[in-house]
């Protein structure tokens, strides 16, 4: 194809479109929980706790006042007075051209009469996040800032984007490449707040990219054709944010129950959370298998959602509650009695597998034990053969992997890679005689001297959470630490010996002074990859 193209592509079609993007509606319980998880890393429980504090009242020095409206709601409605306040603030702070002609009205999805009648908003948008910050805890300040921005943005003008799509013929009109570009011509609400997304694929859509000017029928230079290998990926496990979203989409749960559902599942040990994603436990799987097989209707999503709707109808006075209870109870209690007699314990806790016991030749099965599932012989207790689920038939007492080319700095024994509670690490093979351990990924020296103690060097490290940070090699004697990669350049404003590199979507890569009180920041001319520190 590269040969046929002869170094050029022909612009076959050029399409320019103007697209407008509207702001997201103001917060309701579920969207607040999702955004606080995405943007602040809060759990649903934490979000509700902090929101409650903001609702119940904050001492602003002399006056105690609730900073936000009630936080358990599924209405996106805003009081007329609140809208007027928000519009006035936008005009004052962002200019009248950012105030739409008509106030934006959002439609509430649920027809629920049970909950509060307004969205979650600041009780006065005139209380700017930066003004109340000193009176709030760090978490309260972050959540208030999020609520304030979302509320203000929802009443601002739409954003206008220019989109360009170019079809380029390569050699003939049978081989077509497509390039797309998008630029923001008027940011509107986007200058205040943009809703987060759960999966990075969706995010690609909103990224800005500029195409050079081109004309239909004209050639452009073809430098190279590259091929990239990809792998299809399974759907991601639920996070708290995506589970709340899914529950809401199915109509299961209500503003007052999302946080409780999540904590109940964890307390019952039916699910665990790792890296902010839900994994079912073995017990969780078996309980679910039992319920879906024998109580199918009662774990059915639409059945559960319909029952919630019926209860809402009772609250609105459109349905009587006693017949509703009867309709539920009669078949349910009958099914309980039936299943109590018909279901055998072993049918639930054992799952047969196509394998014979190596000791006695009886069939093997997967069973549920105190510590989860394992493979055991069906001839138990006569035969006591067991092995771990996931182990191969062959006894493979895996030899620990030896770290090549290095020995323990304390006792000179070989070092091995071990797996502990928090993942893999390097440990001494003479354990427990020698207790030397070190992280698997050795911290890398950034070559920058610590500006605090002036003795150590700043090292790039990985936190337990996987997040990268930079800290002094003299720790714990010196506790200097940074989130961003340091460079050996002193601040021209405050003369602090180092600067850091920081990339933001809005401002690109910048050299920023790490000192809190210094506002120095200037665009970075070097390689943008430098923000990642030493590789």
């Amino acid at each position, binding site marked *: 194809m590269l040969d046929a193209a002869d170094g050029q592509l022909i612009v076959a079609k050029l399409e320019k479109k103007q697209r407008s993007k509207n702001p997201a509606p103001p917060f309701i319980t579920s969207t607040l929980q999702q955004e606080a998880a995405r943007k602040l890393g809060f759990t649903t429980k934490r979000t509700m706790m902090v929101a409650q504090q903001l609702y119940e009242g904050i001492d602003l020095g002399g006056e105690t006042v609730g900073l936000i409206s009630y936080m358990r709601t599924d209405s996106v409605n805003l009081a007329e007075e609140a809208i007027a306040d928000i519009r006035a603030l936008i005009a004052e702070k962002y200019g009248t051209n950012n105030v739409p002609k008509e106030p934006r009205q959002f439609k509430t999805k649920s027809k629920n009469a049970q909950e509060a009648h307004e969205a979650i908003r600041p009780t006065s948008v005139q209380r700017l996040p930066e003004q109340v910050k000193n009176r709030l805890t760090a978490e309260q300040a972050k959540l208030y800032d999020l609520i304030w921005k979302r509320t203000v943005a929802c009443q601002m003008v739409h954003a206008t984007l220019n989109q360009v799509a170019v079809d380029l013929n390569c050699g003939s009109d049978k081989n077509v490449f497509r390039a797309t570009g998008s630029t923001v011509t008027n940011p509107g609400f986007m200058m205040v707040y943009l809703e987060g997304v759960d999966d990075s694929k969706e995010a690609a859509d909103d990224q800005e990219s500029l195409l050079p000017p081109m004309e239909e029928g004209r050639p452009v230079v073809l430098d190279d054709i590259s091929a990239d290998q990809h*792998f299809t990926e*399974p759907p991601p496990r639920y996070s708290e944010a995506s589970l709340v979203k899914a529950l809401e989409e199915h109509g*299961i749960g209500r503003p007052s129950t999302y946080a409780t559902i999540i904590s109940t599942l964890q307390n019952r040990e039916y699910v665990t959370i790792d890296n902010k994603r839900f994994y079912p436990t073995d017990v969780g799987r078996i*309980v679910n298998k039992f319920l879906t097989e024998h109580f199918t209707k009662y774990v059915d999503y639409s059945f559960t959602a319909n029952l919630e709707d019926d209860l809402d109808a*009772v*609250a609105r006075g459109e349905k009587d509650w006693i017949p509703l209870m009867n309709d539920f109870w009669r078949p349910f209690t009958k099914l309980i009695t039936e299943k109590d007699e018909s279901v055998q314990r072993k049918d639930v806790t054992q799952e047969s597998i196509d394998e014979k016991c190596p000791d006695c030749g009886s069939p093997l099965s997967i069973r549920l034990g105190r510590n989860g599932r394992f493979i055991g012989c069906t001839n138990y207790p006569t035969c006591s053969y067991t092995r771990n689920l996931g182990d191969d038939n062959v006894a493979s007492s895996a030899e620990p992997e030896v770290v090549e080319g290095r020995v323990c700095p304390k006792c000179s024994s070989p070092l091995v890679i071990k797996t502990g509670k928090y993942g893999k690490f390097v440990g001494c093979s003479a354990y427990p005689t020698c207790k030397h351990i070190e992280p698997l990924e050795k911290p890398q020296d950034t070559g920058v001297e610590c500006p605090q103690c002036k003795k150590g060097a700043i090292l790039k490290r990985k936190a337990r959470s996987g997040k990268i940070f930079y800290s002094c090699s003299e720790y714990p004697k010196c506790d200097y630490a940074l989130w961003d990669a340091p460079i050996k350049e002193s601040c021209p404003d405050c003369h602090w010996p180092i600067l850091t590199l920081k990339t933001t979507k809005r401002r690109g890569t910048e050299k920023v002074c790490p000192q809190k009180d210094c506002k120095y920041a200037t665009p970075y001319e070097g390689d943008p990859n430098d923000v990642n520190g030493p590789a």
Partner: protein
Amino acid sequence: MSKSLVIVESPAKCKTIEKYLGKDFQVLASYGHVRDLIPKEGAVDPDNGFAMKYQVIDRNQRHLQEIGKAIKNADTLYLATDPDREGEAISWHVFEHLKEKKLLKDKEVLRVVFHEITKKAVTEAIAHPTELSNNMVNAQQARRALDYLVGFNLSPLLWKKIRRGLSAGRVQSPALRMIVEREMEIEAFKTREYWSHSAEASAQGQPFKAKLTHFNG
């Protein structure tokens, strides 16, 4: 001047609201739910119109006692628990409890809802009180009863058929199903390899990338 007693859910708000309303109002907290179904069989009786047996929650006994004491000096009771169905139910339980104790004789009982804790919102709500919503209370009772009936009947079956101490819940179990189904989807997923081709081109000296959309098409 007549005295009024205002009941809210959480103690954090008491002082603030008391300040807003002035000295004729005393504000006390219920500290959340005050009564729940008895944790035994028979708390809900399906053969008797789903009659429910409630008891005072231990840790809130003293808060209810305080409310009981304070009501004696008041002429009006404002039930100002949170503006949602849980709040409506808590108000109703406080009301029922005080009625059983015969403490509401000659007292006016009103429901008020604050959507925000500001002086304006609170004084306006007190100026425009409503009554307890029977419909909302019924819905909340029905919900509590359904949860109880599912838990109390299905959980023992899990103990018998799987392991002691397990539980099932009307809303919790469908949520668990979502998480397990997703895990099974991931386990059944077969990763496939695919390739994408892109052209690195430039126009007027400015480089850009384009993705192959048609090949020999």
